[in-house]
């Protein structure tokens, strides 16, 4: 057992994951790459060769050469409307393929359909976020090998460095042609950006596009060119549009969320970054979106415009761009119909890959250009460590998403959340899981005010006057933690066994924390 730089106890060997010595978290920017990228097997297609198009997912699985024990990858752009993961796993089960490692960019509730395949051994290992029913299954120790949690930047880094190998990538393709060119912008299952799929297409040994909208060659625009794609599986439907894109995103009217958002927006306005050319990632959650709405007012009032909005893009950001308040959108995931329509029509709305978005081991991801990141968390501890992975009961709930990357990249990283959810305190002495270290978290904003990481003396100085002038109190962390304790009363500690059910990697591939099995 060793202690890493986030002060977490990590065993030197984790069954089903491997040795951790030399792989312990050392600090947010401590580890740098060396050597060369890994690469996929080379392959050639000849003129007038065999058609890439297959009639069904099952035929594509056969043609791909997928065998038991291999790793298959998926992207999550179809979100809770996705049919592809379930269909591929079902086809594997029918073909007697088992012991698979699945390597999705994220899983959603809709994927609980694969639970029987996890129980029967068709799926033996998951590398990627788990939540809902699958999260519960994993948390209770029903998977033999621990889940590996990586963020949006850590995942392409793992693939490019050879830490994670993909045998077959199944890429849900809202539009494709017979040469395997892919786009997410059109088709009945349109999802806009397909940024999470790029690295898989480039690095998997075999790439299968799964489409319900085969168009004549060539389609345009192309997101992923057919030079990476081996097979095109044509199926009736790759997803349910209702689960793929959400309706119009509206700013919350919940007074508590608005209050927190207003405090966060005032902190941003008081910070040195609130100048022309400001860039931000605020996501689609209730509080972050409301922060954007308050920032919009402040930007208008102060006459400043932003350079770009980053990350998952909603219609709200599209409106900001149309009103001239940000110049560009860098979109790794389009959340709603407005965003999907905008990325198809507006050249200032740029589709970016997860590598471009967040990978720490390339020549400079977009997060490095960020001024402001507004994020959530289930817990923040007194050292400003944030937990986004486990719930109050210790169960795996959320993936890492872009949390680590945006926090590491932005000049001002704000976690905005209520002090308590129901009776459960969100500010604690020690986080159950550390997803993002306090080293890259600059401020916590709750309904009680703004709490600045003492590490950021410069920020404390910059906002020194703002407590009085803007009616947004500055609250020291120990005071906030004491208030949370007082309001919630004593909490029963989470009881866990020694068995590790998930390993959370920092974006550079080191182990930042482990999640242990909940004691029943």
């Amino acid at each position, binding site marked *: 057992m060793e202690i890493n730089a986030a002060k977490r106890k990590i065993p030197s060997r984790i069954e089903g994951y491997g040795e951790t010595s030399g792989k312990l978290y050392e600090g947010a920017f401590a580890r740098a790459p060396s050597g060369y990228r890994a690469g996929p097997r080379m392959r050639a297609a000849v003129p007038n060769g065999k058609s890439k198009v297959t009639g069904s997912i099952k035929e594509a699985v056969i043609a791909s050469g997928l065998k038991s024990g291999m790793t298959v990858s998926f992207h999550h752009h179809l979100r809770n409307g996705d049919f592809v993961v379930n269909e591929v796993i079902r086809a594997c089960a029918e073909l007697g393929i088992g012991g698979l490692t699945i390597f999705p960019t994220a899983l959603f509730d809709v994927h609980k359909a694969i639970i029987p395949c996890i129980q029967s051994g068709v799926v033996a290992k998951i590398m990627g976020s788990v939540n809902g029913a699958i999260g519960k299954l994993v948390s209770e120790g029903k998977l033999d090998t621990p889940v590996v949690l990586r963020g949006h930047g850590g995942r392409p880094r793992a693939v490019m460095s050879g830490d994670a190998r993909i045998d077959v990538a199944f890429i849900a393709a809202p539009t494709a042609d017979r040469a395997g060119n892919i786009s997410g912008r059109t088709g009945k299952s349109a999802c806009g950006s397909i940024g999470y799929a790029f690295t898989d297409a480039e690095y998997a040994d075999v790439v299968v596009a799964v489409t319900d909208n085969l168009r004549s060659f060539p389609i345009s625009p192309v997101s992923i060119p057919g030079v990476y794609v081996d097979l095109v599986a044509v199926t009736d439907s790759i997803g349910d549009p209702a689960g793929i894109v959400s309706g119009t995103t509206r700013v919350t*009217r919940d*007074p508590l969320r*608005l*209050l927190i958002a207003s405090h966060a927006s005032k902190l941003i306005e008081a910070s040195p970054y609130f100048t022309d050319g400001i860039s931000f990632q605020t996501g689609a959650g209730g509080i972050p979106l409301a922060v954007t709405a308050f920032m919009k007012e402040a930007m208008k009032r102060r006459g400043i415009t932003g350079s770009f909005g980053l990350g998952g893009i909603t219609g709200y950001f599209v409106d900001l761009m149309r009103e001239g308040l940000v110049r560009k959108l860098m979109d790794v995931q389009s959340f709603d119909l407005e965003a999907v329509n905008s990325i198809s029509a507006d050249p200032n709305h740029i589709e970016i890959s997860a590598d471009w978005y967040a990978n720490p081991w390339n020549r400079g991801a977009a997060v490095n250009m960020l001024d402001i990141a507004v994020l959530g968390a289930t817990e923040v501890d007194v050292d400003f460590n944030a937990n986004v992975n486990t719930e109050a009961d210790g169960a795996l709930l959320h993936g890492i998403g872009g949390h680590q990357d945006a926090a590491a990249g932005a000049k001002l990283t704000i976690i905005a959340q209520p002090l308590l959810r129901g009776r459960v305190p969100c500010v604690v002495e020690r986080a159950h899981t550390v997803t993002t270290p306090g080293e890259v978290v600059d401020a916590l904003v709750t*309904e*009680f005010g703004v709490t600045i990481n003492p590490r950021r003396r410069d920020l404390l100085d910059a906002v020194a006057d703002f407590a009085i002038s803007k009616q947004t109190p500055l609250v020291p962390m120990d005071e906030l933690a004491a208030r949370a304790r007082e309001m919630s009363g004593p909490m029963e500690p989470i009881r866990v066994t020694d068995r590790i059910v998930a390993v959370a990697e920092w974006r550079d591939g080191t182990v930042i924390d482990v999640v242990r099995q909940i004691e029943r």
Partner: protein
Amino acid sequence: MLYLPGNNPNMLLRGHLFGPDGLVIDLEDAVSASEKDAARVLTREALRRGGFGRCEVTVRINGLDTGFWRDDVAAAVSCGVSGIRAPKVESPRTVLDLDEEISEAEEKYGVTRGSTKIFCLLESARGVWRAYDIATASPRVTAILPGGEDLAADLRAGRSKEGTELEWIRRMLIVAARAAGVDALDTVFPRVADDDGLRRETAFVKQLGFDGKSVIHPNQIPVIHEIYAPTEKEIETARRIVEAASAAAARGLGAVSLDGRMIDAPVIRGAEYTLARAGLSAEKV
């Protein structure tokens, strides 16, 4: 002044964070009959715990025609609240009865005698008609407020979007309040999602002379503050008036003119009030 349901611990703990000038912990309409006792206990615990920031804290008790009001008064006064908001006040007699009960409670719990104010809700035609008598029935009365739904029903008018049915009543209450030397505070705006309607109504009551407005939803607070906040121009004028007056006083002059306008005591008081609302004290100008 933000109404907080007395049976909602979440709001009792957080209400002050939304930045209202005052909190009205409601034991009356927001609490069903079966929960009256529980709400009173919870309210008392919350009041004892304190931590309401800079908010003035009052409690809306149950009507004097119910069996709850004496316990409500005891709970509120024992915790040293600023005031009691009394519903459905129809006569000076009601005020006197309440005054007496409060006095006993102040004595019993060691609270400074006379420190607990009374806010009278006038929710019937009879109450409104006797507004001046009610406002002057006890030195504890610090404000009178028109009712909303109950008053409209009593008038057999129903509630309109424009508030036509309450227009004359608001004008009358201003006259009564000013004659009696108490504040006039307006009733709540019930349509919580209609910010434009709230803005229109608040601008109207401010113009009539109302000193403030009650709210039932935290989102309404910034809208009201925005309208009640003096403009930069108003603050600047007020600052110049106060400066001119203090300069005149230093030279031993009673009255002085500024920009061709006579500056006398009421104008100075108005200017000081404007500065106070802007969070600036006259001394610091």
